């Protein structure tokens, strides 16, 4: 009896760790199983939807749920960027999240400066851009940004 119970415990924990079991638990609906509203919001992802893993599908369904409460300009931005975002590798998405979390702690004037510097960066000659790219830190090691450090006591949102 005890051995059987321990066996069930071990089996259930092992199954819960496996991606296929998580897909069953989280639900991995095909594109046709989504509601018409979800399909409308997630339309940019339609070509790749069936290749997404269960957790990403759940994430996007959660985003689709909050979509109606978003401001119209945010809805438009999201629709425009959704496909490019989906095409990034998991490592690129994670790096982008880390970079975003780092930048969002900046005070408003520094955020404006970042936007301005992005515009400047866009206008750099390709050779110079390549030089900066080659000087970039290896993946996983974020670049220290002393000029972009938030003031003391500023908390992350």
């Amino acid at each position, binding site marked *: *009896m*005890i051995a*059987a*119970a*321990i066996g*069930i*415990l071990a089996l*259930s*924990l092992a199954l*819960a760790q496996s991606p296929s079991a*998580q897909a069953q*638990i*989280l639900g991995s609906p095909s594109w046709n199983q989504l509601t018409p509203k979800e399909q409308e919001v997630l339309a940019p992802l339609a070509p790749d939807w069936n290749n997404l893993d269960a*957790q990403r599908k*759940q*994430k*996007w369904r*959660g*985003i689709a749920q*909050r979509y109606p409460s*978003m401001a119209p300009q*945010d809805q438009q*931005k*999201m629709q425009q*960027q*959704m496909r*490019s*975002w989906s095409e*990034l590798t998991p490592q*690129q*998405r994670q*790096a*982008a*999240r880390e*970079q*975003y*979390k780092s*930048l*969002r702690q900046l005070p408003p004037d520094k*955020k404006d400066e*970042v*936007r301005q*510097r*992005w515009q*400047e*960066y866009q206008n750099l000659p390709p050779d110079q851009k*390549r*030089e*900066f*790219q080659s*000087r*970039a*830190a290896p*993946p996983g090691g*974020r*670049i*220290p*940004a002393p*000029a*972009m450090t938030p003031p003391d006591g500023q908390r992350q949102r």
Partner: protein
Amino acid sequence: MRRGAWLGFGVLLIAAAAFGYQQWQIYNQTREIAEIDVEILTSDLPIDAYVDRGFQTWLTSDKR
């Protein structure tokens, strides 16, 4: 026998709790990632600005 049944019940209870806790963690992790992704997708900067490592180096550079 009775002691064995209680033990078995206890182990099953632990299994259910561990399973529930793990699902709760997955749910929270998914929700947190979704929140950040929405913020990135609706931010003033394009996605490239968060991905381009050259831009990240440029930000820390004094060259203009």
